[in-house]
């Protein structure tokens, strides 16, 4: 039932009295309201802004938060109001939904914050009214594209265990991934340019032998040009074959436009090799050489602008088709008219209607070569009408194409800008600093805590302890939490420097795994290693690590656990390092290493951050030969 007209339900029920006299059967008993409340105003306090509405208004939609008993969770007994710690601006739209039955999407609102609010209040976005739905869908699509771009960029980070073939393919597609790819990219670009220039220069007349007219350079220096051509074609062939080898789906690759261009570019050469002897077809072979110009299209792999242009033209195919059709119509009409108009004049060039096509095209596109001009008055009149209409007909579809191009181009600009921004080290560094700020504080306090313990033990002065009490209550609670986590997982937080040191030390020493390798997806379970330590043993974080919201990346490929042979002696520390882009590293200082690849998304704001630990506290030392497991996540 439409809740929007819930206010009219009493009327509908009353009107049902009209059915009573014609009914033959007794009516069912009417439902009685158990506790019939008088309609009352309820106050909704959203982050300080108070909204008031009738209770009945909210009851219209019982499957949302405000309409159901779920709002009782937010009821504040003292102030007798419902308090929500949410955005009051968005709440306006939500409350209006209850009032009017229509959900509107405010344009100035960010799409993801709006979605979050809707999700919180239990309203599905599909009921957004028609007036705002288009806008909402557009923004949502843009956002999704942006997220996909982000994800793709994240995927660019090296995945482990890529086959050689996959590496090559990635190198071909994104030249920025490795130096080799970049070199290859520039080399091919250079050779494309060389090949094109060669083709052009071949036809330039250079130097005349005294007996003949100017010969084109191609015929004068045949050998040189042939060598150049051979070299270019060889490079192109090798490139094509490599791409073919590396392509994940060879069939699809062979069908793609770029590969067809590649083939068309190199084929004339091979055909020429085969066919040089035969005199008859050598004429046809000469024509084939014209296809060599297609090599210039290979540049579209190098130039994004070209790709965008091609994509635009493809997407504006309908407008272009319309343009072509209308032009054809106009050409035929005007050519006919001009022909009949000029039929009378002597020595007119308008010998037939197809002959007039040329005049019409030249006039409509305002070229006006002047090789055909009308001489009669009627011809001149119609000719001028023709040129005026030509301007109009061509000018109409062009803005559509231009706007399409502009939109696609700007989208690409945005993507590029974002990518460039991401690479900016400064931004990354800033993010890292803000994240490590809290963890640094934690480790600082921990160190001070340990120091305090040490001081207590040694009974040192008190003033050193004082300046450690400046941490606020919130901070201390947070630290306590991190501490609990450490205790839970039996790992500790260390800073990045130490971690990287450890990585370099023991990298890739020992691959044999004694204990079974564990791999899990969607969560981390399993034990890291059974390392005996004085204080703690290392465990992989169990699922108390809160693997994060389901939509994050979760890849746990393999956790190889190694145990060294040495007798377990010393302690070790594991460190939980968090990279800003959601990879959690577990690091145990070790003599032997393992490789474990774990990447866990950090749930926003709830992850324990562990980084820099100062100099290891003296009580925890690692000694070489400990059966410590280093679990490093890539």
């Amino acid at each position, binding site marked *: 039932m439409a809740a929007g*007209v819930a*206010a009219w339900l*009493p009327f*509908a029920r009353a009107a049902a009295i009209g059915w009573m006299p014609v009914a033959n059967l007794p009516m069912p008993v009417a439902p009685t309201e158990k506790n019939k409340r008088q309609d009352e105003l309820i106050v909704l306090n959203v982050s300080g802004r108070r909204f008031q509405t009738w209770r009945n208004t909210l009851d219209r939609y019982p499957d949302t938060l405000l309409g159901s008993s779920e709002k009782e969770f937010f009821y504040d007994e003292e102030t007798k109001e419902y308090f929500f710690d949410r955005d009051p601006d968005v709440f306006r739209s939500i409350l209006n939904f209850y009032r009017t039955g229509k959900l509107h999407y405010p344009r100035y609102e960010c799409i993801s914050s709006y979605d979050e609010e809707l999700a919180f209040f239990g309203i599905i976005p599909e009921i957004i009214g028609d007036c705002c739905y288009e806008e909402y869908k557009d923004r949502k699509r843009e956002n999704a594209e942006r997220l996909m771009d982000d994800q793709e960029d994240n995927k660019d980070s090296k995945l482990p265990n890529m086959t050689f073939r996959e590496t090559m393919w990635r190198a071909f597609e994104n030249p920025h991934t490795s130096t080799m790819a970049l070199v290859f990219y520039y080399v091919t670009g250079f050779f494309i340019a060389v090949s094109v220039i060669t083709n052009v220069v071949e036809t330039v007349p250079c130097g005349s032998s005294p007996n003949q007219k100017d010969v084109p350079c191609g015929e004068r220096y045949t050998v040189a040009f042939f060598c150049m051509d051979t070299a270019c074609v060889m490079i192109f062939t090798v490139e094509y074959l490599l791409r073919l080898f590396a392509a994940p789906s060879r069939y699809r690759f062979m069908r793609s436009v770029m590969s067809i261009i590649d083939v068309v570019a190199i084929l004339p050469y091979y055909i020429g090799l085969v066919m040089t002897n035969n005199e008859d077809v050598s004429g046809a072979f000469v024509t084939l050489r014209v296809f060599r110009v297609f090599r210039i299209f290979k540049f579209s792999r190098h130039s994004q602008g070209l790709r965008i242009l091609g994509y635009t033209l493809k997407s504006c195919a309908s407008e272009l088709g319309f343009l072509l059709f209308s032009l054809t119509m106009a050409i035929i009409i005007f050519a006919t008219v001009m022909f009949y108009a000029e039929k009378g004049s002597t020595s007119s060039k308008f010998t037939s209607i197809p002959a007039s096509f040329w005049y019409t095209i030249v006039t409509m596109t305002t070229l006006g070569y002047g090789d055909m001009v009308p001489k009669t008055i009627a011809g001149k009149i119609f000719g001028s009408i023709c040129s005026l209409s030509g301007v109009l007909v061509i000018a109409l579809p062009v803005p559509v194409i231009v706007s399409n191009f502009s939109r696609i181009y700007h989208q690409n600009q945005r993507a590029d800008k974002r990518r460039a921004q991401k690479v900016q080290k400064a931004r990354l560094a800033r993010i890292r600093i803000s994240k490590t700020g809290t963890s640094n504080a934690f480790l600082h306090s921990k160190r001070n805590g340990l120091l305090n313990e040490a001081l207590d033990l040694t009974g040192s002065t008190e003033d050193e302890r004082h300046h450690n009490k400046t941490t606020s209550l919130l901070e201390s609670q947070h630290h306590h939490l991190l501490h609990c986590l450490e205790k839970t997982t039996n790992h500790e937080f260390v800073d990045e420097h130490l971690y990287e040191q450890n990585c370099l030390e023991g990298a890739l020493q020992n691959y044999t795994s004694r204990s079974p390798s564990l791999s899990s997806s969607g969560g981390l379970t399993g034990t890291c290693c059974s390392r005996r330590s004085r204080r703690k043993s290392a465990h992989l974080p169990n699922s108390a690590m809160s693997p994060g919201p389901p939509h994050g990346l979760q890849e746990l490929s393999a956790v190889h656990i190694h145990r060294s042979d040495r007798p377990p002696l010393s302690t070790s520390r594991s460190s939980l390092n968090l990279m800003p882009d959601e990879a959690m590293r577990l690091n145990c200082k070790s003599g032997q290493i393992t490789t474990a690849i774990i990447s866990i998304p950090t749930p926003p704001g709830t992850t324990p951050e562990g980084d820099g630990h100062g100099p290891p506290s003296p009580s925890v030392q690692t000694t070489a030969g400990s059966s410590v497991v280093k679990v490093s996540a890539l």
Partner: protein
Amino acid sequence: VVSVAWETEGLQTLGIVVIVCASVKLLHLLGLINFTEDSIDDEQEQSMVRHRPEALEKLEAQTRFSKKELQILYRGFKNECPSGVVNEETFKSIYSQFFPQGDASRYAHFLFNAFDTDHNGSVSFEDFVLGLSTLLRGSVQEKLNWAFNLYDINKDGYITKDEMLDIMRAIYSMMGRCTYPVLKDDAPRQHVEMFFQKMDKNKDGVVTIEEFLDCCQKDENIMRSMQLFENVI
């Protein structure tokens, strides 16, 4: 040669005519000359009828609702119809939302006519609330009167078989298609026959108000169901 000359002449004339017509049209477009009467379309905006209901006290006196109930009713009414009156289209659309499976427009049409007591094509809040007052707070007699008024489409004091058939069809069409058991086409007609058998005492093919009241008051089921919606508000 003569024919060619004629052709050239003809085309010349044609060209000149085209030019003249085009320039005249251009001038007309620019608004410099008006050779046809411009029929400006009268804006078809609906005359924004704004209707304010009578004062709350007056309504309270006229109907059997309390002030609070009137307030609640008006709020709902005004929400759906900000202009203060309901026209038939809005009425139909509101009523149809309660019966999504079937087509409630026919019955809504009859309801509208029953509420629109002064037959001016729109139901104001007073009409609305007066009707509701009868339906919810009226005596059984008044309710039955109201129902008779509903069935009597041409308001001539008699319910004919055709009128009843219309009403019945309207009621059945609210059921929609998916019913159990499957709705047969002559079900309304059969129902009308039953109704007339029961109500039409003198078998003259019409039901008068007296017959109607008489018969209904004798029928227990009907009397009981009339009390059903006592506490809707």
